[in-house]
C-alpha cells in the first residue's frame, strides 16, 4: 500500500494521530502537498461519505474521520498554494426566529465544517434580518435555515424575500431543512435548496456553491 493509501485508510478509521504523522512523512518524502490532499485525505473522506450513506459506518465514525482530515490539513496548509486550500465556501446557518430546536442544525453545521466549509453559526431563534446581515457582512455564499416547528417556518420565507429585496440573490443562495420542512415548501417560498439530513445538506450546499 502506498503512503497515500495508508493515509486514506487511517483517515477512514478516524485515526488522527496516525494521519498527522503520515502526512508529515509524506511531505518529508517530497510528495507534493496537493497530491497528499487529493489522493490521501480527500480520497479517504470520499470513502467515508460512501460508507456512511450505505450505513456501514455511523455518525461518530464520520466525525472522527473529519477530525483526522483536519489534523492532516493543518500539516499541509503551509505547503499548499492559496488555490489548493480554497475553502469549499462559506455558509451562515441558524434556527429561525421563535424556534429553539438546534440539534439538527448543529449536526448539519458539524458535517459542513467537516466537509471543509466555513460555517458561521448564528445559533437559534435567529431573526430574519440577522441571517441576511451576517451573510452580507461575511460574504457568505449560502444561508442555511432550520425550523422544527410548523409555526416558525414562515420566517424562512421572510429571509428568502429579504435576500431578494436586498439584491443579494445573485450571490447568496438559500437552503432549508428540519422535520416539518419539505422540498415542496422550499419550492413554494423560492428557497434554492432543501435537505433532509446532514449528509444530504453537504451535497446540497456543494451543488449550490458550485452553481
Amino acid at each position: 500500500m502506498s503512503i497515500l493509501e495508508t493515509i486514506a485508510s487511517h483517515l477512514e478509521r478516524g485515526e488522527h494521530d496516525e494521519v498527522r504523522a503520515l502526512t508529515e512523512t509524506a511531505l518529508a518524502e517530497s510528495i507534493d502537498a496537493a497530491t497528499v490532499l487529493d489522493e490521501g485525505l480527500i480520497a479517504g473522506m470520499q470513502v467515508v461519505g460512501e460508507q456512511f450513506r450505505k450505513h456501514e459506518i455511523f455518525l461518530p465514525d464520520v466525525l472522527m474521520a473529519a477530525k483526522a482530515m483536519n489534523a492532516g490539513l493543518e500539516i499541509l496548509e503551509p505547503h499548499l498554494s492559496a488555490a489548493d486550500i480554497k475553502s469549499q465556501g462559506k455558509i451562515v446557518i441558524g434556527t429561525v426566529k421563535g424556534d429553539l430546536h438546534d440539534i439538527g442544525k448543529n449536526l448539519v453545521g458539524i458535517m459542513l465544517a467537516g466537509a471543509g466549509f466555513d460555517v458561521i453559526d448564528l445559533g437559534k431563534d435567529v431573526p430574519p434580518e440577522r441571517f441576511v446581515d451576517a451573510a452580507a457582512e461575511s460574504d457568505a455564499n449560502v444561508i442555511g435555515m432550520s425550523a422544527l416547528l410548523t409555526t416558525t417556518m414562515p420566517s424562512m420565507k421572510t429571509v428568502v424575500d429579504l435576500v431578494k429585496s436586498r439584491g443579494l440573490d445573485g450571490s447568496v443562495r438559500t437552503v432549508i431543512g428540519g422535520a416539518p420542512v419539505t422540498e415542496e415548501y422550499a419550492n413554494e417560498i423560492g428557497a434554492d435548496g432543501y435537505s433532509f439530513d446532514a449528509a444530504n445538506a453537504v451535497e446540497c450546499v456543494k451543488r449550490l456553491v458550485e452553481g
Partner: protein
Amino acid sequence: MRPKLKFLDQALIERIVSEALDLLATLGLEVQNGNAAALLGDHGAGVDIAKGRVTLPESLVLDAVKKAPSGFELFDVLGNRTHDLSGDNVHFTPGSSGISVLDSETGTMRTPVTGDFVRFTKLTSRLPHIDAASTAFICSDVPEQIQDSYRLFLCLLYGEKPVVTGAFTIESYRLMRDLQIAVRGSADALAMKPLTIFSVCPTAPLKWSDVTAQNLLDCAADSVPVEFISMPLTGFMGPVTLVGSLVQHTAETLSGVVLSQLANPGTPVLYGGSPAAFDMRYETTPMGAVETQMIDCAYSEIGKHLGMPTQAYIGLSDSKALDAQAGLETSMGATLAALAGINSISGPGMLDFESCISCEKLVVDHEICAMAKRMEQGIEPKDDFPARPHFEEMLEEGHLLISDHTRKHLRSEHYFPGPVIERANLSRWREEGSTTLDERARTEVSRHLSEYEPSRLNEDARRELTRLMTTEAARYGMDELPARDGD
C-alpha cells in the same frame, strides 16, 4: 397481584439520583429566563451571572421533591373526575403536537387542517380506553401565532375529556388559560379541578429556555399541572449508556420540580419525558427503539422512588404507515409502560418520531391500550377456590357455558376487542369480505364518527370559548375562524 416491571434495583436508583444531585449542585443549569433565575437565586441557588449558570444545593432539590404532590386528579369539561394520577394507575392519551396527518383516503402524510383536528377529537371522545384528549397536531389553516391555542379550543369544544397540551410561546399561555377558565367558570374553580396538563421541556443538557421556563412559572401560578419532558438523546445530547441518560434525565427533571415547587408549592407535576436512543445511522430520535422504552420505564421507577406520578412518550411508532412495525412498536411500548405503572402514557395514534397522527392508528392503538390495561390488572382469584365444585359442574353438564361462575365473571375477566382485531375463523373472515386491518380500522373510524355525540359543555361556555378564540384570531388578521361541520 399487580404485575410490575422493574429495570433498576434500589442501589442503582439511589446512585443515579445522587449523581444527578451532584450535577445540579456543581455544574448547575443554564437558565435563560430572568424570572426563573431570580426565583432560584432568592431561594438559595447559586447564580453565576458571568457564566450564566445556576447551581442547586442538594437541600433545595430535596425540599422541592418533598413538596411535590404524590398524585393529582383531572376532571373533564363537565367537572367529573376522570383521572387519578397516583400509585400505579395507568391512563392513555394520544401523542401530541404532530406535524402531519396520515390521510385516511390516500394513506399518505399531509399537512393538517381544522377538519382533521375536529375529526380526531371526535374520535378520541368515542374511545373509552383513551383517557384524555391531546392537542394532537397543528392546523395549518389558522395564523401561526394561534396554532397552539387553537388546538386546545377545538379540544374543549368537541370533546369532554381532559387535555394534554402545551404552548409554543410565552404569549400563547394567557389565552390557553382563559379558554380553561371559560370552561370552569373561574380561575379558582380551575385550580380546584385541573382540566389540562401542559408539557414543559427542558433543553438537553441541563438548560431552561426562556419560553419553557416562563410556561412552567405561569402554569404553577395557576396550579395548572405540568409534565416535564426531558429528552436526552443517547450518545449525542446525552451519554450513550442508558444509565448515563437516566442521570441526565433525573437532573433535568429535578430542576423542573424545583422551579415548579418554588413558584407555587404543591403544583401538580408529572415526572415525565421523551428521551430517545439516538439512531447514529439516520440521525433520528426513534420512539420505538427498545432502549428508548427501557429508559422511559426506568425513569418512571426513579420518579416513583422520589414520590411523584409519572408520564412518558411511549406506545407510539416510527413507522410511516399503519403496518406491522407500527403495531409492534406501539404494543411493546404500551405493554412495558402499563407494567411499569406509568401514570400518563402519551403516544397512541402517533407515527414517524412524534410527527404524524392517524385516526386509523388510534382505533388500533385503542385496542392495544385496552389489552395493556387488562394485563395490568393482573391475575386474581375470583370465586375460584375451592376449585372442585367448578370441575364437578363441568363434568356433570359437559361444559361451563351457562354456569353462574361463567356468567358472573365473563365480561370482567376477559376483554373483548372491537372489530379491528380479527378473531373470526377463516371461513367467516372470508365470508365477511377478507378485510385487512387497514380496512377494518377505516370502517371503525367512520362508525365512530357517525355515532359521535356532541359535547355536553353548556352553551354559555361554548359561546365564551368561541368568542375568546375569534378575538385572538382577529388580532392576527383572521376575522372568521375556519368553517367547521356541525356549527
